[in-house]
């Protein structure tokens, strides 16, 4: 049976996508930051 890796291009071997679910990570970080702000651990942030 052919090795599927052999068919992959050089570029597809060296390029990356985050090895985690980006959507859920964004939700997790977002809610964690919201909690830190709500409970006063992170104070006023300006942009």
């Amino acid at each position, binding site marked *: 049976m052919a090795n*599927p*890796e052999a*068919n*992959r*291009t050089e*570029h*597809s071997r*060296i*390029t*990356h*996508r*985050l*090895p*985690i*679910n*980006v*959507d*859920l*990570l*964004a*939700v997790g*970080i*977002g*809610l964690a*930051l*919201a909690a830190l*702000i*709500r409970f006063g651990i*992170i*104070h*006023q*942030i*300006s*942009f």
Partner: protein
Amino acid sequence: MRESHPSALARHGFEDTRTMSTQTIPMPIAAEAQLKPTSLAATLPGIALLFAIGLLAKLLEHVGVVLRTQYRLSFPQIEYVLWAILLGLVVSNTLGVAAVFRPGVATYELWLKLGIVLVGARFVLQDVLHIGGLSLLLVAVELVLSLTVMTLLGRIFRLPPKLTSLLAIGSSICGVTAIMAAQGAIDPDEEDTTTAIAAILTLGAIALVTFPAIGHLLRMSQQAYGMWAGLAVDNTAESIVTGSLFGQDAGRWTILAKTARSSFIGFVVLGYAVYWASRGQAAVVEHKALFLWQKFPKFILGFLAISVLATAGFFTKGQLGSLSSLSQWAFLPAFAGVGLRTNLKDLVGQGWRPLAVGVLGEIFIAIITLGLVFWSYNHGVTR
């Protein structure tokens, strides 16, 4: 030394899944893979590059303000959003993005989605339900018309049928994300996927320049323009940038319209998967509910959760301001990432027919959505 050019597919941060069996619908790559500490470390240089460009963009905006107000110099009024994209474009198209930076540059997607989740603090639930509901209605109309027109144009220009499907999916919903969701489901040729992504990115780059100009020409309100950008510009990142270039408030409304549009992704991809499976050219989808859940953009749930908490009075006014500022900090590297992953040589090097179909289809979609927004505006459903 300049790096060799990866394909549009690869540069966007996606691995090629085509080596998987064509008899199964592959799971999203992200859900399959394990979190590795080495992978996290590999993202650091690229993340640093994203923030460095973003901070430089902020600095240049500030320098512009100082030169205009304190030294009375005629320095152009350019906001950090545009500076970030321009700086990213210059780096990407002159020096190139070295391999060491690519894993981190791919995290622009995470920063973008984090920004969307946090910006939920600036929407009370009534706004989300009212404008989001209106957006859903407008999106439904836009979807039917754009899918039909893109399919017709694909036939007129004799594009390969699966390339036509990819262009229709990408232009009607959320660009590259939708194309990547579809490529696992309808099993197109790699060349078709790459061509469709290049066409969608080209059209996004064109929108960055044309939409704000049209918005100013038509003297659109922040809300009307923001909704238009959210409904008409395909790729989520380009859409939000296009909205933000018109104004911060417009960017906020763009996010709302865009998330409403993105929520349709599962249904449209499922429809195409079923169609191609019925023709024996794609795998059969056995668990349709699971398929819809897998394709649903979960960050929308985070956006809604923060909005619900904000509406329920969970945060003080100052805390809401902090959350809003945090969302802007998250968008900063995302905007830099849009510039960094845009390679002008690739955009002009694609075949003319897919681009012609894309351009004609996008002009149609832009006109239709502009008409829909003006209609809703004139009937008092938007402010």
